């Protein structure tokens, strides 16, 4: 408004005074000012007259049939709501749908996390004996056998075997397969060390238990003919380079 002085009340302050939203002290200050300021009094009257001014333009009433229809719809809504099961919280108060949704989300996350936890490989690795945990391939071969293979070839074989072991762990398989490995890979003394090992493949075979002697392991005389499974690393020439025994 153009005739508002610098120390006059703002429109907002006047409106708050009308709405009764000022504290007693503020209202008192407003009142003191209004006693002496004609301009603010006029503005206050203008604000107060807005409802009568505009209401006069729309002397409308909600048609009676709308009121009656609303009563019927409200009753219908109520009977439908009572037919629905109401979720109640600890204090017997209805649980809002947002809270229900949040609970469902939390439960879903917990279930999925539980499934993932139980399905992850080596979930019980910490409980198994140290001998059954993942072991470095070829690392524990008897010194005299390992010495037969030239050092670069041996490192290559170890890397290749590690790759194959890693591939096994990355593949989606059951933890039981991982647990069946009993020994690391042992380099075989009769393999040709001059042939490349980098494209080695691994095959599963069954051998008599006496084959453990190939790796320099002790064999029980009574069980020499029992079958035992083993993984063989084959070089590109098709000859076995290393072996490990599985349970």
């Amino acid at each position, binding site marked *: *408004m153009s005739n508002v002085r610098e120390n006059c009340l*703002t*429109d*907002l302050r006047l*409106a*708050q*005074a*009308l*709405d*009764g*939203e000022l504290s*007693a002290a503020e*209202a*008192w200050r*407003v*009142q*003191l000012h*209004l*006693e002496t300021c004609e301009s603010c009094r006029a*503005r*206050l*009257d*203008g*604000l*107060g*007259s*807005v*409802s*009568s*001014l*505009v*209401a*006069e*333009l*729309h*002397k*409308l*009433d*909600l*048609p009676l049939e*709308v*009121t009656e*229809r*609303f*009563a019927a*719809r*409200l009753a219908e*809504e*109520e009977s439908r*709501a009572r037919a629905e099961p109401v979720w109640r919280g600890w204090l017997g*108060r*209805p*649980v*809002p*749908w947002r809270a229900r949704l949040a609970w469902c989300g939390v439960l879903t996350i917990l279930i999925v996390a539980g499934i993932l936890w139980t399905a992850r490989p080596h979930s019980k690795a910490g409980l198994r004996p140290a001998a059954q945990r993942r072991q470095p391939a070829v690392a524990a071969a008897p010194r005299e056998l390992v010495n037969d293979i030239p050092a670069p070839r041996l490192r290559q074989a170890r890397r290749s075997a590690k790759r194959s072991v890693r591939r096994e762990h990355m593949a989606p398989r059951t933890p039981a397969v991982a647990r069946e490995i009993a020994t690391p890979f042992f380099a075989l003394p009769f393999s040709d060390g001059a042939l490349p090992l980098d494209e080695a493949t691994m095959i599963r075979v069954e051998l008599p238990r006496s084959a453990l002697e190939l790796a320099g392991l002790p064999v029980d005389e009574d069980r020499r003919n029992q079958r035992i499974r083993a993984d063989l690393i084959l070089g590109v020439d098709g000859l076995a380079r290393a072996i490990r025994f599985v349970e």
Partner: protein
Amino acid sequence: MRRISAADGLSLEAPESVLELDSVKEPREASDPKQITAALFEQQRKAVYRYLVSLGLRPQVAGEVTQDCFLRLYRHLRSNGNSENLRGWVFRVAHNLAMNELKRGGAAVDAPEMEADPGGDPEQALLRKERMVRMQTAIRALPRRQQECLHLRAEGLRYREIAQVLGIGISSVAESVQRALAVLARTCHE
């Protein structure tokens, strides 16, 4: 009439029209959602309906939207929603539904008919009607926000409630109402 402050014996009487609308009480004592809804419908149905028509909805559509507002209020209360300032909540829902209806083409083609003044001097009635038409034209020429603030204020909402309904600041509400009033005052004195 209501005094703005009676703390020190001084008095200032605010215009009665605002105070009548301002004295609306929310039915807090009732705890049943249906009772609260029915009570608030009884108190506010005309105000909501008038506001919807003033936004430009056809009277029939405004009637349906009014019902929808209060049915939504019932569901809101049943789902244990916030029961603070239910009048503001109803007007906010009414405003949003009206905006949706207007987008879908529920706007009135013509302005609602003004009722003829029964009895009285025909010449005075004609002058009054002319003045009303001028006022209505002036209001329609106002920016949308000013119209909304003006109509909500006319329905007795506090500035704080208007700000909540329209999602704007309380200072913007005060400014919009003042500007609208200034225009209307000029129109009255023409």
